[in-house]
């Protein structure tokens, strides 16, 4: 018991951890019981339905020291590219600029723009071109990246990118309605991001 005393003291002194005593319990447990109870009271004949948290592995609580690795989940609608993979660093194309995420990063919600997502694992670097989405960095050194579409960078044909860029630039100059203009602008943005990713 006293072995852990020093830990609590150090936590209290830094005041970084807002709920030092609740870390042992998964946070989800209390929420669900509330729902199930009120359900049973109102509709005793039907079993209460499941909720998404029942199908999810519980995330670990924030550790007291910064872990050496970052756990990354990178998901797309049609697959989970990385799930629970431990890496050294990821660089995320946020709308505010490239954002490097290391273990112990402050918790953040970031919107993504078309650009390169790179995952650094030792000396290996895998690069993806993502079309946009969201990224969350949690306090427990978990990073969730959700993109609508992503391809490994070496699957992209540079010639087609140049052609697409030229096409959309021309479309942007000839566009008459607002909708056409917006569509062409999106095309130009994506292709110039692709171009920058390939050349840079």
């Amino acid at each position, binding site marked *: 018991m006293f072995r852990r005393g020093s830990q609590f003291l150090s936590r209290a002194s830094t005041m970084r951890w807002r709920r030092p005593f609740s870390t042992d319990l998964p946070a989800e447990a209390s929420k669900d019981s509330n729902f199930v109870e009120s359900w049973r009271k109102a509709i005793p004949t039907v079993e209460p339905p499941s909720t998404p*948290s029942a199908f999810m592995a519980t995330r670990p609580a924030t550790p007291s020291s910064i872990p050496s690795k970052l756990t990354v989940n990178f998901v797309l609608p049609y697959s989970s590219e990385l799930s629970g993979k431990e890496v050294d660093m990821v660089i995320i194309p946020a709308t505010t600029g490239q954002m490097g995420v290391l273990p112990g990063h402050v918790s953040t*919600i970031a919107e993504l723009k078309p650009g390169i997502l790179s995952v650094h694992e030792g000396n290996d670097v895998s690069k993806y071109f993502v079309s946009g989405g969201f990224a*969350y960095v949690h306090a427990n050194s978990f990073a969730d990246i959700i993109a609508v579409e992503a391809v490994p960078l070496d699957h992209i044909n540079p010639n087609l990118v140049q052609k697409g860029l030229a096409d959309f630039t021309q479309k942007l100059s000839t566009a008459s309605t607002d909708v056409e203009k917006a569509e062409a602008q999106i095309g130009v943005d994506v292709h110039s991001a692709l171009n920058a990713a390939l050349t840079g």
Partner: protein
Amino acid sequence: MAMAALRREGRRFATPLISPNPANVFRSSLIPSEEPVLSGVRCISTQVVRNRMKSVKNIQKITKAMKMVAASKLRAIQTRAENSRGLWQPFTALLGDTPSIDVKKNVIVTISADKGLCGGINSTSVKISRAMHKLNSGPDKENKYVILGEKAKAQLVRDSKKDIELVMTELQKNPLNYTQVSVMADDILKNVEFDALRIVYNKFQSVVSFLPTVSTVLSPEVVEREAESGGKLGDLDLYEIEGAETKAEVLQNLTEFQFSCMMYNAVLENATSEQGARMSAMDSSSRNAGDMLDRLTLTYNRTRQASITTELIEIISGASALEG
């Protein structure tokens, strides 16, 4: 067409099977009465049984074919559903799972199939939706339905027509993809006012079992309010937000994206459950048809044998009368 044929045949069989003493009634319905058989009209009873055997055999063929179709569709859609399971988890990790949240405008998104003959999945989602409606009803609260699929519409139109806000059908005409679902989600977000969206669907577990599930998506205003008041989403205030100028704008994008991702997974899970349920329903009905065919064959053979025996006895007794 196949379904109409099934229904017609089903009706023909329903009457003798429902009676308390099936064996007797079944026989008497096949052989209208003992009198005609004895008075020499023997072929008519075997004719009726033969016809019925033929139709049972046809039903069996149809149900077997439907089972095969469901099995092949299931295999295709199951992998897609399983691949999409990673998609909603980050949102639940960030925004939490809040089925018990108490808000004014509830919108229940009921996901069901367009076609029947798939066991209880449609009535399950309707039942859960009604229960959600009841659970969240109260003074100055609003509950609306958004319905996906023909079958839930048919059931909910009967008693809660005034609460139905939006109906969408024929979702599965083309194979489901994210673009299509996000357009649909956008449609719902534009046309319906809500504080909380509750998506009711059947989560696929195995071919024979599915779990009715409710996912909750909150509106950006509610998320912000909860985060500020330090309720269930209190942790959200600790996050730094990068992106658009204001926090509200990012939250708006975030919840819309969350809804489309949740919907995509829900629609796929429900479609997978539908195919699984249809497969097992069709499997049991073809087995039933096989059993019925066995019983009918037995009856048919017995009747035939009886008539042959009667004829023989008549001939023999006639001959012996002549001899004697």
